[in-house]
């Protein structure tokens, strides 16, 4: 970790980014005033070459103005992180091109910075502030507001379309409606208590969040995760990816009004969720992963259930993809729709399928080789077109890879001796930061944890996979027509809860 003063942030970031070869993974602030160190801004860069994340910590001297030079002019990916830092900590990024509020909506009072340690977690506040949205204006243009309440059973998000007829000129999204302040709520909680909440940040990546969080805690303690536990984590995490990818393939078809494959996808996902329930006792595989290892081992009969389900899913999913490939009208809808160019994906430091469909082969399982993934044979699936079809194709290819990984991990697990599944004691270092990362179905989920001397959470920062991908959606929609929005949106499968952490 590089320690610098806030004024030198740009220089340090430039060095760490290695002329743009390393992408900005996350940026966040930490209130270390109770420790006598003032505020600090942390920047994380992913170093593919060394399979590591490089961190620079920019110190804001106590007593000085709370501001630091914005990185957004250098790295567009920093835009949201810096707006969030300004919203939640009141630390101002200087020269930020667009410092509108992001997280806090109209109902919050001005100059209220909830993540500061002086604000108690159970504060009740009310106030009034502005939340301006970007709109195009001119003769014949009109505005189509959509949401925050939608017709389907989905989470809230407001989309403001500036339209010229059916063509979308500009789209701005207002998200963070149901922000739960989990990062604040876990402060002072025990590791186990925090894990319970971390698993509930998002239903669709609850395993990925748990793995990232546990990895961060394990790094603080030098705990060695037993091999058996690592293998089980792989199985559980890939089962999560599988049900998501299969379900998302079906959901995409709803965006094009293609009813039969939509129903097929829903059915296949349901089967996988029921399989999850059999092996973990719940449909979203919660409670399986704990710091230091896993909570319960997968027995031989669990492996049999999974393998039988994999064969069924593999066959049925093949049928689903055949239906999609055989439908010219469907291909016509998804080809050249909602294009994200490679340059955009790199600039926004996109992750997951969004990045891989635009030719950026980013995958934390390979790039950072966490856990036991380096021992497993699998490919990173990429496409170059960056359109809806590319994202669908990546998803389809990844289903096959995921099934391959689960089978490998289960066969390794079968030959693994019945050893312990969790390292005994976790003695963690206090007031030291550590990160953990894992590749969820939507991309990498990053957690950064700092503990206090009682081994309770001092600061948790969560950068979920949807966070860097959301800003790509308005860019993908530029020049498209508004009835194609649901299709483009579903191809990214972005998550609201992942922002409302």
């Amino acid at each position, binding site marked *: 970790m590089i320690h610098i003063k806030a004024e030198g942030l740009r220089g340090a970031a430039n060095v760490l980014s290695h002329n743009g070869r390393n992408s900005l993974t996350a940026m966040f602030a930490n209130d270390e005033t109770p420790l006598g160190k003032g505020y600090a801004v942390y920047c994380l860069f992913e170093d593919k070459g060394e399979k590591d994340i490089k961190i620079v910590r920019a110190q804001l001297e106590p007593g000085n103005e709370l501001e630091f030079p914005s990185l957004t002019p250098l790295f567009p990916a920093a835009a949201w992180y810096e707006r969030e830092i300004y919203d939640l900590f009141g630390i101002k990024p200087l020269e930020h091109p667009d410092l509108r509020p992001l997280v806090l909506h109209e109902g919050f009072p001005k100059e209220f910075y909830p993540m500061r340690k002086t604000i108690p977690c159970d504060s009740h506040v009310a106030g009034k502030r502005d939340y301006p949205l970007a709109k195009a204006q001119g003769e014949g243009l009109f505005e*189509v507001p959509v949401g925050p309440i939608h*017709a*389907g059973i989905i989470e809230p998000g407001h989309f403001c379309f500036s339209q010229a007829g*059916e063509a979308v000129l500009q789209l701005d999204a207002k998200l963070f409606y149901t922000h739960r302040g989990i990062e604040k709520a876990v402060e002072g909680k025990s590791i186990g208590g925090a894990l319970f909440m971390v698993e509930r940040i998002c239903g669709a990546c609850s395993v990925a969040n748990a793995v990232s969080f546990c990895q961060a805690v394990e790094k603080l303690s030098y705990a060695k995760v037993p091999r058996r536990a690592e293998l089980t984590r792989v199985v559980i995490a890939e089962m999560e990816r599988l049900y998501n990818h299969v379900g998302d393939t079906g959901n995409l*078809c709803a965006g094009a009004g293609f*009813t*039969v494959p939509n*129903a097929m996808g829903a059915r296949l996902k349901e089967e996988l969720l029921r399989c999850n329930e059999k092996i973990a006792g719940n449909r979203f595989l919660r409670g399986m992963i704990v710091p230091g290892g896993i909570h319960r081992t997968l027995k031989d009969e669990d492996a049999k259930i999974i393998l039988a389900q994999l064969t069924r899913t593999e066959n049925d999913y093949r049928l689903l993809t055949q239906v999609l490939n055989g439908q010219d009208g469907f291909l*016509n*809808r998804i080809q050249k729709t909602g294009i994200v160019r490679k340059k955009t994906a790199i600039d926004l430091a996109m992750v997951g399928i969004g990045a891989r469909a635009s030719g950026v082969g980013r995958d934390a399982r390979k790039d950072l080789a966490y856990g036991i993934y380096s021992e497993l044979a699998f490919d990173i699936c990429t496409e170059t077109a960056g359109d809806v079809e590319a994202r669908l194709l990546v998803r389809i290819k990844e289903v096959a890879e995921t099934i391959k990984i689960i089978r490998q991990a289960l066969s390794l697990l079968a030959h693994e001796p019945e050893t312990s599944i969790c390292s005994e004691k976790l003695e963690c270092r206090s007031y030291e930061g550590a990160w953990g990362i894992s590749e969820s179905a939507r991309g990498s989920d990053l957690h950064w944890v700092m503990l206090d001397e009682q081994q309770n959470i001092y600061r948790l920062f969560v950068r979920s996979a949807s966070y860097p991908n959301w800003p790509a959606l308005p860019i993908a929609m530029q020049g498209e027509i508004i009835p194609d929005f649901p299709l483009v949106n579903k191809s990214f499968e972005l998550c609201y809860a992942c922002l409302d952490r």
Partner: protein
Amino acid sequence: MDYHLIYDTSLTFIQMLTIAFLAPLASGVTKKTKALLQGRKGASIFQDYNDLRKWWQKETITSPFTGPIFLLAPFIYLLTAFLAAFLLPLAETGLRLADIFVFVGVLAVGRFFMVLASFDAATAFGGMGGSRETFVAVLIEPVLFLSILLLALRTGETTISGMMGVGGLELNVSGILACTAFFILLLAENGRLPIDNPDTHLELTMIHEGMLLEYSGRLLAIIHLASMIKSLLYILLFAFLFLPLDLPLAAKALLTTIAIAIMESLNNKLRLFKIQGYLLATAGLLLLAVVAQ
């Protein structure tokens, strides 16, 4: 007093009520077939009656920004649907009411008022739905008249009863082409896939349903009933005049409702600006049918 006139009028009146009464059933059969094709059980074929009753019992809420046209349009829409059902000469009567242009025109009046109403609440979704409905209607109508021309050329008549008197299409090249073309028109005219998706909740993609978003309660029930009647009328027209099969009318109508469900399951929705190409191809089919005749 002309005894025959009273007899014929009451018979036609009964026919109109029967069509209105059976319309939700036809819609239910299509929905059930779609569900079965998707591997679902689906709701009962009588579900649409329950839905209508549900809406009828619910409170009707109207936006404060709407004017009288918003309240009036559903009734006009229903009235035109009933009138069209009255004009269709299915019952064997001596009445020679309906020129086919009148039939199509009456239904167009209903659509016109629904489009007006969709703009009335000044919401974005309603306006989008209304403008798209007009866009599609403008494309459908010339093709529809082409199909009428085909029948008129064949029979030398423009009244529906006259056309029916000559009999439906025969099972030959021309008949099959015209049958295919009118079936596509039937789907397009009634907001079915691949033109419009009647089952979607995605407002941004809606055409016909987009116009109805501001409606609730009884007004919504009226609109849905009118749409169902209109849909059944087109099915009957298709079954009577365009389906070159030698079967009883009820069997042909049932076949058509099931065929709609199959078509909706086989296809996804077209990109909005591909609709004109699709309908142009339909016009091409009809021209070929005219030539082949």
